[in-house]
């Protein structure tokens, strides 16, 4: 077994990275902050998938590679596999992790009471903060798949987030560019 560090190291680093980019470097430009955070994830995913596939034969098709991401790759990072994989057979894959660790330790609690408008405003804020934290794993997936020869765009669906405070599902949608890969 390889070297390990405590989980708080990685979590602290990620939380601090997101807050540095969102609140300090690009406080007024959230879309730029998001792009930088995604780029950091991309770099990490690219390097990790390079390491984890070193002794494997090439994947025969996209589905094989995606399955590798859902099983081996996810297990290396999160010690669990993706719970559900769906595809429309036209290049889009939906990866669902029912208990996404990186969101489960972040408190995203909107103020519970107040009028309808302030509640939805609070939910909006929560969704925005959560999405900032999801650019990093999205980048990791995109970096890993790109390294496996599948250029793609990855986004996270957080529509169900504020409602499911305890489940913390992470839903990642990978749109591959067929024909480019």
């Amino acid at each position: 077994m390889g070297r390990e560090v405590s989980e708080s190291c990685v979590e602290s680093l990620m939380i601090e990275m997101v807050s540095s980019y969102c609140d300090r470097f690009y406080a007024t430009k959230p879309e730029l902050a998001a792009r930088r955070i995604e780029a950091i994830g991309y770099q990490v995913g690219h390097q990790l998938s390079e390491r984890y596939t070193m002794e494997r034969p090439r994947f025969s098709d996209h589905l094989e590679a995606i399955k590798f991401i859902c099983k081996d790759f996810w297990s290396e990072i999160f010690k669990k596999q993706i719970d559900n994989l769906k595809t429309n057979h036209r290049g889009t894959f939906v990866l669902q992790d029912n208990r996404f660790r990186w969101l489960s330790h972040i408190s995203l609690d909107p103020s519970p009471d107040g009028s309808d408008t302030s509640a939805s405003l609070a939910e909006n804020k929560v969704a925005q903060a959560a999405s900032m934290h999801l650019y990093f794993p999205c980048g990791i997936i995109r970096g890993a798949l790109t390294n496996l020869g599948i250029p793609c765009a990855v986004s996270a669906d957080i529509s169900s987030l504020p409602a499911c405070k305890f489940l913390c599902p992470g839903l990642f949608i990978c749109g591959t560019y067929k024909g480019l890969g």
Partner: protein
Amino acid sequence: MPAVAPRSGEAIFASAEHVNAELFTLTYGAIVRQLLTDLEEVDEVNKQLDQMGYNIGVRLIDEFLAKSNVSRCVDFKETAEVIAKVGFKMFLGVTATVTNWDAEGTTCSLVLEDNPLVDFVELPDMCQGLHYCSILSGVIKGALEMVSMKTEITWIRDMLLGDDAYELQVKLLKQVPEEYPYKDDE
């Protein structure tokens, strides 16, 4: 209530949730790399890494105190030993050694020979002056400030710059007395 015995760094590390160090190391590397691109100036990158570490240390001290059961240290010498043997161990899984004390007992060095932050790292020539591990000094400074110790931390040796170990000089500037009672609005 009987006092709870302090726990060793090994015991805390063994009972903590772990992740593979590659993820940590590569994430840190990617952050440094992105900062170099975005901020351009090496000095500014050092400063920002230190600031990030500071912010982490300010939060991490809570986990440290909660898990280690360490009570008030009698002097700065004990504080340094606790950081080296318990603090480093419980988070990074490695220990540091404490050396080079000055006569007053307010300045010492933490020496790290094994450092998970730098696995697979090589610095290109353009990174002259970069203290790659600046986040560590920030963490220590931030954590100590939360327990009323103002410190100044300087990098003395850095393996990425060709030295034989990592050496951080920790200088205790002053111990801020805790003020009671705390004001409610602060």
